[in-house]
């Protein structure tokens, strides 16, 4: 059973655009929602994370929006650059200390 659903599977935007990646979860015990960026041949790197007590968090060009009632959260990348081209994973964790990952979104930022 997929506990974290992620969409879209792939995304192409032009430089300067704002790609948005969405995730939805089912388990109300989740209380930590990180986003990871993965380049080919590398392990996932933590981008930004949020907890359910806030609805939005910004770090640089990356913003997480969180809707607790809908059990959804999303990643926005402002002023996207070709160097942002990577695969992005949302994830969720709770008291069990076990990350559950979404299926991933392959982002391509074109010139």
């Amino acid at each position, binding site marked *: 059973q997929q506990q974290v659903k992620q969409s879209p599977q792939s995304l192409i935007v032009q430089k300067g655009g704002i790609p948005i990646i969405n995730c939805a979860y089912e388990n109300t015990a989740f209380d*930590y929602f*990180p986003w*990871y960026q993965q380049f080919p*041949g*590398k*392990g*996932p*790197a*933590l981008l930004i*994370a949020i907890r359910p007590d806030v609805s939005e968090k910004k770090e640089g060009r990356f913003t997480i929006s969180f809707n607790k009632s809908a059990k959804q959260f999303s990643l926005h990348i402002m002023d996207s650059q070709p160097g942002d081209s990577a695969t992005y*994973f949302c994830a969720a*964790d709770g008291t069990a*200390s*076990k*990350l*559950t*990952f*979404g*299926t*991933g979104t392959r982002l391509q930022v074109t010139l």
Partner: protein
Amino acid sequence: SAVISQKPSRDICQRGTSLTIQCQVDSQVTMMFWYRQQPGQSLTLIATANQGSEATYESGFVIDKFPISRPNLTFSTLTVSNMSPEDSSIYLCSVLQGNYGYTFGSGTRLTVV
């Protein structure tokens, strides 16, 4: 955050053989994890390895196939036993640190022929 070194970074192995992957962390951590990432797919947790106790395996993964050692707070190994082509994946080590969340190594890319 912790720096994680994994060895080997990649390997090509014959079916039926075993490979041991090492994970070295530059600081002491209680919780370590092993993940599998099949080509083009997401990450799936294999097991949680805490020092001083046996590893806890997720559904679909068994100790005979993926034995894990955790001899101290900075080191762990994962063995992929009796390999078949279906075991071809990237295997990743991860640690949990309270202030930094989960950190991942660069992974071991395994190809079984």
